[in-house]
């Protein structure tokens, strides 16, 4: 009965259909739209709908948009700020998330479930609501700001003392809220990785003379690199293109790439430029990934 089903499944080619369907999905909803975006980035703006047109003569496309992208300080600055914010947020998430993930794996089984639950719990509240909560916390009259201010005032000379810290509409606020929002994306893959590690390896290292921190440095840390990379990508990639957080708590003078894309599409109605920025963003994310894969494959081969 079971094998009859299987024969039917194989004969009808259903297997191929099922295997192919995610790829079809990717082609239809990622690759094709992205090609459209690339094509659009070589057009020029026009007062029509949609608001772009190709040149009437051969070669029909123009490169001025990219020229502008790479020479205008606005876009370069936005790119640099995005990389900086995303990188700082990723490192902070790692520094906070790694000890959390490690502590969860070392906790007892039932406590472990509770702690994981707590990591996921924030997702039950709307993301937007949580960002607004931060806006409230960062305002100069909030207890949070007051507590930080008085802590700061303790450590600086009297002449530097502040009545309140300017947090809203700064890059600091953007990084702070991004770290808060993306922390679970760092903790969960790290936990999955650390939880699989064989603790007898730690005992073996300790047996051979290593103290606890040496065991961590020599065994746990190198074996958790895949988890660090997975968590790092899960934080860094969305942080690079983040739109909502910089729009709500950031400084309009220091826009991140996501905000620039929105502006070009919306207010400026410069779709070719918006597309070009999107292409540049994707390249900034994909190229390091490909380099990493390349070196990883090389390292694997070298070990063999």
């Amino acid at each position, binding site marked *: 009965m079971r094998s009859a089903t299987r024969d039917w499944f194989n004969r009808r080619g259903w297997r191929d259909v099922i295997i192919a369907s995610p790829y079809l999905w990717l082609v239809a909803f990622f690759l094709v739209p992205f090609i459209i975006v690339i094509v659009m980035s070589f057009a020029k703006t026009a007062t029509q709908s949609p608001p772009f047109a190709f040149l009437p003569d051969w070669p029909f496309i123009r490169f001025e948009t990219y020229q502008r992208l790479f020479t205008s300080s606005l876009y370069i600055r936005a790119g640099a700020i995005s990389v900086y914010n995303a990188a700082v947020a990723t490192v902070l998430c790692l520094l906070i998330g790694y000890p959390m993930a490690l502590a969860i794996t070392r906790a007892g089984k039932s406590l472990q479930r509770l702690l994981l639950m707590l990591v996921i719990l924030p997702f039950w509240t709307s993301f937007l609501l949580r960002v607004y909560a931060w806006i409230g916390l960062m305002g100069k009259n909030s207890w949070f700001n007051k507590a930080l201010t008085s802590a700061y005032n303790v450590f600086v000379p009297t002449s530097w003392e502040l009545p309140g810290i300017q947090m809203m509409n700064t890059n600091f606020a953007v990084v702070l809220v991004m770290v808060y929002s993306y922390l679970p994306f760092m903790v969960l893959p790290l936990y999955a990785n650390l939880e699989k590690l*064989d603790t*007898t*390896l730690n*005992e*073996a*290292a*300790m*047996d*051979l*003379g*290593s*103290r606890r921190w040496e065991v961590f440095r*020599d*065994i746990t840390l*190198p*074996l958790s690199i895949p988890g660090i990379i997975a968590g790092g990508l899960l934080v860094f990639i969305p942080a690079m293109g983040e739109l909502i957080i910089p729009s709500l708590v950031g400084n309009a003078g220091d826009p991140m790439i996501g905000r620039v894309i929105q502006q070009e599409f919306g207010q400026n109605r410069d779709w070719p430029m918006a597309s070009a920025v999107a292409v540049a963003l994707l390249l900034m994310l994909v190229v390091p990934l490909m380099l990493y894969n390349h070196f990883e494959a090389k390292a694997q081969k070298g*070990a*063999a």
Partner: protein
Amino acid sequence: MTASNPATPQPDFIRIEGVTKSFGTFKAVNNVSLNISKGELFALLGGSGCGKTTLLRMLAGFEAPTEGRIFIDGQDMAGVPAYDRPVNMMFQSYALFPHMTVAKNVGYGLKHENMTQGQRDDRVKEMLGLVQMAHLAYRRPHQLSGGQRQRVALARSLAKLPKLLLLDEPLGALDKKLREHTQFEFANIQYKLGITFVVVTHDQEEAMTLASRIAVMDQGVIRQIGSPSDIYEHPNSRFVADFIGSINMVDGEVARVEANGVEVLCPTLGEPVFVAPANSHRQGDKVSLAFRPEKVAISRRKPAAAINVLKGKVLDFGYFGKDSLFRIKLATGRVLSVNAVNTARMSAEQAVATWEEDVYLSIAPEAAMLFGADS
């Protein structure tokens, strides 16, 4: 290489004094006391879950005894962490570091030794040579076979030349040939380096071939400590006799006590059996009569001996090449196991006996053992 001098015996190199380990109310190791001398190859033998690994982990420093004390080379180990003990362990699962090459694995413990890099490299080479793995020094563990991994684990645990080496079921994953080969390697290494070995095993043959002394464990308690032949020929209890090798065990009662032995009456044997020497048995004692299959003579013709002869029929037999195992059914219905060595180049049925044939069994009075009913 510094080999210790075997001429200086240190009978209490390792002293385990009344050690108990409780997990909740369960005592995994219960009041174990035992001494191991320097350079000895000592085996802990026992069934699954009897506490062997727990005892080893207390020696290595991964578990603290609930009660009792452990001394290694005169030093009390209480509160000494695993990384400060002169002890290395080869883990049941090998626990090789997957992200390091074979050479890095073996050299890992040497980072903490006061040596130059050149000396470390030399030591790694020496250890890899010892286990015949030098040609695979730059492989990763996942690129090795099970037997090769086991040798790397051994080399790694030996590299620091510990005073005490703990091996937890070191040969569990190997085939018979490789196992025998490695057993000889262990004995060889132990002889060359003069390291004290404690080997955990549940395989009694392995314990017998490897060890100079064996401790038989059961439910957290040590039942007997002795040389392999002590434990095999002079088990101190029914449990040990039953656990080591195979044995025929028959319940009976002491019928008569003489100067040189006792006569035991076992209802299921039909005939009285005379056992020497008398020890402290008294008339009327409930006892278990025990004798090993290879200590019984089997013949087609009635033997000349007047005592300890039983008559039976061949129920079944298995041919193992060098010997055969017969199952003999007595007139009372009781079935006994008997070994016969195949000295002649004939099939067992021609040489000894075949199915349904009547045979005579004779047991030498010195070959049989008696245990009190409660042991």
